[in-house]
């Protein structure tokens, strides 16, 4: 199989600037078909900008990208037929009923999605008789999920899909993602919630200040060689590779990603009363990327 057949999303040096303001710079990564791929980054890192470039809502100022083998600029309409997208702040026409919005999204695509839509509405507990203006953010997001999933697309793109959803609906949402994924669909979801990326995604890319800083499997991302160090009796230790430094009552705690020999040499100059070296939590590892 060539790369075009196995790749759902291919991004090459994608850049978007807003005048002098930064958007994203030289972002490159690939999402394989059949993956559940996480896109992590703090607020304002460039996650939504990347997604909006992929969807043709904004034009990249440099680089290129393909979705399902189609160029994002030239093949926009073909791409839209084959994907389902839910934005982070889902909004629909306030005066329309939920059922009308869902039917409108299906009619525009020219697909009869009634059966799938009814199944999704039942599982996500969507009240189709209400008007959009009567819905909370969470309930609007549920309508967004139905609109994104009802035509059973090959690729899902979700921008912070679970914000505003209660835990039960979050679990149901990921169960649906897993089911569609098991049937061959690819899922690309952006989030800043580490736990959901760790739980549901096989691979992830991390973006910070508009630049991609890591892209790998979750296991590899979590094993960066960094260690969580707790040293009792140590004060004011300064060493390259230290991060998340906390001075405690009895000593210091920090994440260390430098040479272990350098650390031991540095510690030998202090009156170390107790020392523990552990694997850091996933949260600590990701925070290293964010810092």
């Amino acid at each position, binding site marked *: 199989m060539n790369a075009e057949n196995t790749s759902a999303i291919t991004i090459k040096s994608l850049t978007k600037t807003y005048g002098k303001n930064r958007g994203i710079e030289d972002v490159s990564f690939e999402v394989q078909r059949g993956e559940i791929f996480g896109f992590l980054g703090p607020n304002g890192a460039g996650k*939504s900008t990347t997604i*909006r470039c992929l*969807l*043709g*809502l*904004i*034009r990249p100022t440099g680089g290129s990208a393909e979705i399902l083998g189609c160029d994002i600029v030239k093949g*926009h*309409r073909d791409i*839209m*037929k084959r*994907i389902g*997208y839910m*934005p982070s*702040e*889902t*909004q*629909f*026409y*306030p*005066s*329309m009923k939920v059922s009308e919005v869902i039917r*409108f*999204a299906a*009619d*525009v*695509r*020219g697909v009869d999605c009634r059966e799938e839509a009814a199944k999704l509405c039942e599982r996500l507990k969507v009240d189709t008789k209400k008007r959009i203006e009567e819905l909370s953010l969470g309930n609007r997001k549920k309508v*967004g999920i139905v*609109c994104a999933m009802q035509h059973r697309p090959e690729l899902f793109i979700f921008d912070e899909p679970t914000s505003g959803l209660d835990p039960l609906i979050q679990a149901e949402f990921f169960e649906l993602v897993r089911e569609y994924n098991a049937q061959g669909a690819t899922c690309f979801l952006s989030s800043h919630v580490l736990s959901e990326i760790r739980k549901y995604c096989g691979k992830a890319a991390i973006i910070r200040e508009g630049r991609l800083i890591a892209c790998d499997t979750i296991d590899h991302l979590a094993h960066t060689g960094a260690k969580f160090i707790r040293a009792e009796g140590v004060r004011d230790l300064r060493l390259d590779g230290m991060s998340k430094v906390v001075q405690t009552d009895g000593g210091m705690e920090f994440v260390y990603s430098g040479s272990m020999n350098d650390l031991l040499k540095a510690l030998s100059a202090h009156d170390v009363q107790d020392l523990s070296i552990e694997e850091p939590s996933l949260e600590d590892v990701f925070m290293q990327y964010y810092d």
Partner: protein
Amino acid sequence: MTLYKHELKLNRVGFLIWLLGVLSMSAGCIFLFPLIDDSMADMSDAFASMGGFSAAFGMDKLAITTLEGFFGTEIGTIFALGGGMYAALLGISALSKEESGHTAEFLHTLTIGRCGIVTGKLLAILTYLCLFDVVAFGVFAGSAALIGESLSMKCLVCYILAQFAAQTEIASVCLALSAYSKRSSLGLGLGIALVLYVLDIVARITEQADFLKYITPFSYSNATDVFVNQGSIEAIPLCIGLGVTVTSIFTAYFIYRTRDIAA
């Protein structure tokens, strides 16, 4: 086609409000005509000899004591202004309302495409303007018949067609602005309609400003001129207007096809 139907549905209430508002005022004036035509007979000469004011409202060309004169000078003004403002609002909000209402991401990630979005919305605007004018034609002709008067059918048809052309021109200019703007600038739309109307009045009052008739669509669609000229519409301003309409529509497509869409 789905977007076209969707637009018609979303704009239904606004259409009915403007239709009822403008046409009830216009029809009300027609029904008032038999009650005031006697009293106006005495004032007719005075109305016709007020210099610039008479010229501005066409009272120097048509006798206000006849229904056609009353229609050309009074009702034509109400309808032209109402129709122009409605056309401006339709055009100015058509595309930008998706961004100001935060529905753009939903609409643009369906399978319509940007040109399809402009086409669907443009067709909905033209449909509502067409319906607006067709109903107006029926109301004008019907109201005149009900009070036992008649309006020249040829003149009335030409007037309605000229109004449709003017409304389309205003809506197209506003559509091009809407393609550029991320905010639904209703005030700007109404302002454009009103300024164009004032330009027509200025062009009629002073000869030095006669060139303004080539700028404003209210010049070639003026009721007095259409009725005085027995349905004939001045060709050059009309052709310029049609040119502005076509250019504005192409501009709307061109801008909207490439512009970044706000979240």
